């Protein structure tokens, strides 16, 4: 994980991904954070996990 990645934000997004969500839903839920911090957190999640997608393109995180 990069030293500039916000770990609390990563955890928040991982919680959101317990059910299928669009990327837009993620942005809306954590939109009080800087956009770049959200992208860094997203990068971290995508590097560490294989995200599932449904037929509508929504993301979710399978229970590890």
């Amino acid at each position, binding site marked *: 994980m*990069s030293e500039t990645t916000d770990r609390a934000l990563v955890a928040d997004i991982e919680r959101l991904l317990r059910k299928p969500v*669009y*990327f*837009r839903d993620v*942005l809306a839920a954590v*939109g009080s954070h*800087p*956009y*770049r911090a959200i*992208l*860094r957190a*997203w*990068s971290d999640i*995508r*590097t560490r996990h294989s*995200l599932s*997608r449904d*037929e*509508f*393109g929504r993301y979710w995180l399978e229970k590890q």
Partner: protein
Amino acid sequence: MRAGRTNEDFRTMLARMERAGHLLRAKRSIRPEHITALCNKAPAAVMCEKVEGYDIPVVGGLYWTRARLASALGWKESELGGRFAAAVGRPIAPETVDSGACQEVVVTGDDVDLTALPIPLMHEKDGGPYISAGVAFANDPQLGPNAGCYRMMFRTSRELGIDLFTASDLRRYYQTKFDRGEPLPIAVTVGVHIFEHMAAAYKAPAGLNEMHIAGGLRGEPLEMVRAKTGDVLVPANAEIVLEGELLPNGWTADEGPFGEFAGMQGDLKHNPLFRVNAITHRRDPIFFALQMPWENDWLNGPATEAACMRVLGLAGIQVAAVRATEGGCCGWSVIAAIKKRAGEGKNAIAALLSLPVVKQVVVTDDDIDIYDSDEVEWAITFRCQADKDIVILSGMKGKHVDPSVRPWDLPPGQLPTTSKFGIDATIPEGIPAFRYERIVPAFDADVRAEDYLS
């Protein structure tokens, strides 16, 4: 830059559009995910000077209308197809130069971080932030250099998903490497002049370097510089260049959905990955967020009009004007005005519908202003008999992106077929032209409105 050349760059084009009133500046700070909504609501293209958290401005909406496209090109709206056709007919090879503004800043290796770019989320159901204005440059030992337009989805700080789903030269280059288990080096520009962008959007036959067409559009050689990390040339005056390689993972990485050129939210796809190994840019780069669908569509409009002129010419028909319309995504719907001889209304329909994308056409006489929708509707109303003048052709080549062909019912790999139609709105054979004589206000030439209304 070589003496005697202009090699107008992206930002000089923007300045010209701003002087013409086609580009406005947003002074207030904006979050990246709000830029597309702003561009959709603005009466002109928008330069977002302050993007929250970034020191790179974002511009969007440049080619949203025919008028803005013409302004970007510096051409008249009525000239688009004709001038594009002329440029294709007289390509000019690019020249390689030793240095370029696009490499004023070079970031490589572990310092590469795509989150440093204001890549915006554009549409409600997109799979992530997208680079929508990417022009990808690649090289093949047999086929030579190639350029094309591809969307790219942000995945990680070093990786983008790239849509290589449909047939293209880049897909062909990639397939060759993929079969050997090797990566394909590419470079992607974000922010090139419309001449390069439009040339890259043009589906030139393999072996013809699209940047020769860019030279034809410019009327002088495009100056290109070698990428820092791969054997690829890029326009020397680009704003931002992403250098890297398409990984040999094949069509396995989730990519999309994305708001497509047809104005509908597309499907989730599986595509290759683009690993970025270097980012080069100008000292003060501008990020171009091309807005779907119209900017994408208008990049192809002049090529469509040029193709229509070509097939009508091959059919021996004298063309007065051709217009690819917005509602048909600047390719699927075409209006043509011709100097008609007997039977040529139908001949023109047959010729135009033979083009792969064109799905509906209206053919008028050359007294109709085809840029005026009321004029076209008038011609359809009074010069067309539905039972005689509407031509329907079935079983023609279709496109998956069109839901009306029900592509989801097709077996994998099967191309859809479609029906097409044309309306012959030319004066029917046997009706004398005087039956269509227009009313003219008495003493029309003698009366000037400003003499009475000022």
